[in-house]
């Protein structure tokens, strides 16, 4: 620790940030809390509707396709596992970008941001493929070709919630990719070197990790449960 914090430091007495956090980062945290409530409301709505339904389609049956593989895969959820892996890896590269930023390493930040953007785009492409595939099977908002697990006719709410919530998440990933591209350009132009710090990368990173974390919940609710 190069900068020890003295025990008597009065963090809340004004004149300084109580958490020693720049305002933009604090704002990002509160924004993420707000966004968590948006997703929370969606997922809880999904939960209540599913809970009040007699039966529900089995995700292990629905999600069995893989690009380039004819027919069904021998194992379920292979493709979505790949998607999830890609997104989590993009979080890892984001961590590397933030770490490079702490060392004011412009080259490093650019390299790792580029990987993160690539990961985000790969995830979005996977989602586009999955949506197209499901659509080709006749699934869309208001249309559900999949039977319930007990063989009965299913309501359309399985696909309704799937497309709405994964779509909303995809929209967040898309926004994140745009933000990351802006960050990359700003790094490339040397904006952060002039400022003397790479805090913006850290804030973009917070958002990116949040989007990743939300995916874990979305993934659990739609593919695993």
């Amino acid at each position, binding site marked *: 620790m190069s900068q020890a914090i003295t025990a008597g430091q009065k963090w809340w007495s004004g004149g300084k940030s109580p958490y020693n956090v720049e305002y933009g980062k604090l*704002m990002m945290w509160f924004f993420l809390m707000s966004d968590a409530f*948006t997703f929370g*409301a969606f997922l809880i709505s999904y939960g209540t509707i599913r809970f009040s339904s007699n039966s529900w389609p089995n995700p292990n049956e629905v999600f069995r396709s893989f690009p380039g593989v004819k027919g069904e895969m021998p194992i379920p959820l292979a493709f979505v596992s790949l998607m999830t892996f890609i997104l989590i890896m993009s979080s890892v590269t984001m961590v590397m970008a933030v770490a490079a930023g702490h060392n004011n390493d412009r080259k490093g930040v650019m390299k790792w941001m580029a990987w993160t953007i690539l990961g985000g785009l790969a995830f979005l492409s996977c989602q586009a493929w999955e949506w197209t595939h499901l659509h080709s099977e006749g699934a869309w908002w*208001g249309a559900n070709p999949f039977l319930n697990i007990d063989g009965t006719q299913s309501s359309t709410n399985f696909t309704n919630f799937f497309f709405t919530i994964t779509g909303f998440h995809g929209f967040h990933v898309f926004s994140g990719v745009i933000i990351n591209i802006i960050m990359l350009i700003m790094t490339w132009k040397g904006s952060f070197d002039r400022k003397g710090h790479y805090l913006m990368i850290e804030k973009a990173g917070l958002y990116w990790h949040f989007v990743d974390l939300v995916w874990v919940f979305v993934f659990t609710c739609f593919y695993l449960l």
Partner: protein
Amino acid sequence: MSNDVSLHGHSEVAASHNAHHEEHGVHHHKEAFITKYVFSQDHKMICKQFIITGMIWAILGGLMSVLFRLQLGYPDTSFPILEDIFGKWAQGGKIKPEFYYALVTMHGTVLVFFVLTGGLSGTFANFLIPLQVGARDMASPFLNMLSYWFFFMASVVILSSLFVQTGPASGGWTVYPPLSALGDASQGSKAGIDLWITGMALFVVSSLLGGLNYITTILNMRTKGMSMTRLPLTIWAILFTAILGVLSFPVLLSGLILLLFDRHAGTSFYLSDIFISSTQKALPNEGGSAILFQHLFWFLGHPEVYIIILPAMGLVSEVLSVNSRKPVFGYMAMVGSLFAITILAFLVWAHHMFITGLNPFLGSVFVLLTLLIAVPSAIKVFNWLTTLWKGNIRFTPAMLFAIGFVSLFISGGLTGIFLGNSTLDIALHDTYFVVAHFHIVMGVSAFFGMFAGVYHWFPKMYGRYLNNTMGYIHFWVTLIGAYLIFWPMHYEGLAGMPRRYMDYSGWVSFRQFGDLNRFISTVAMVVFAVQLMFVFNFFYSIFKGRRVTNQNPWGAATMEWTTPIRPGHGNWPGEIPEVHRWAYDYAKDGREFIPQTEPVSGNESKH
């Protein structure tokens, strides 16, 4: 390792941020009209933009109530002028049912969101936070500007919905599906609802940008010595309001997105087993739940009433203390009760749904939680009364409105105890008792808090005073009028008279209230006229009001009165003063008040 590097980085950022603002304070460059008055990033100008937009909305929303009160008071009379203005909506000079519902819906939407949320929080949070915590401006002046312009866009969208051919949203401000989800179900469920949803989505963005700014400014930008417990209660109230908004509005947004899909994408989130009589069609939707929407809506809707009332409470606490020339009674209890209300606000939403088919056991849990709110509310009321107790009261118009607020909050709060009981609610729901309750406790009360704030801080906003005589007339007519309007409604409600009917003359049980309704309508029109007088006073005084010559005209201890009479962008010309004491050192050691910026001397008595 990474942690202390980032700590280092942050302190630099904070320093450069301050330096940037410092520049603003020092040399005052001439600003172009567009950056000074239109796309301004000065919190004081944004406050004025909010209050004036809010006033326009208040006039429109009030005018709507005058129109439907005209219908309720004179159901048999025709007013040809209405047809001249509204055309087919008032054919033959009589308001059509669709128009009546549209008026009621938009009256609620406009006043709840655009006046008492956007107008009230937008005005006073923007104005008071930097001035009272001792900051040059908001944490992010740019996002603050965006917050206003999103509010403006939301206003434009909602306003335009009044002009579409099928009329604005008309299913109530709560836009319950299935009515709001099905265009075939009513005129107002066509384009009107789409515009309503779009407008509200923009409003949520505005409130989020504003709220994030309010929270971060209060936490991060306080001047040296301004610890949290030295903050004036206005700031505490605004902080909790902002937290409520940031956490509850997104849930409304989710609910509205699902509603939009139900309307246009053939989904069944809220729809199941529906037959529409107008088209004689059974809908294919199944599996949805209309009650789900009510949960999502009221998860916002209930915190929303605290978003409305908390800032008013903060303003009133401040005005009462300043004009009683006494410290506010029980400062920490005031903060604690604000906190308790904030927590409870998230736990009581289902009391709006006692009779929608909620499990009775769940209902009883919500009864308990709802009645718990009486505890912090009562703490606040007793503290206001004890602040007044033996005070050296100055009856300025602001003070009168603050006292009026306490009176109304007690009157309206007591009926809340009736309605919070699910058993009584079986009889009282959907009657005029409910209308009377919420209008007094959050409608008129919040308006009184806002008026107290406007009269008190107008000299700081414009460097001139509002006219006192008009202020006194405004107060007395509004207070007496509010009671004359809403007091009889309790009586009508207890007699079973339902809400949302445009004509009661067909019922023997309610026909007897014809005269009473006419009386209420007459008073409503008088009160509305007096509000127009206030608006006149406001604009007249901006240009012609008595000039403020004293930097601290009310003798208040808080920081905003240490700025110049007409502060520039940056608020304080030199360094921001340091704070040495709490905000309520009144009548201490033989002195009338001691400003927060005055150092504590050695022989001062402890408070």
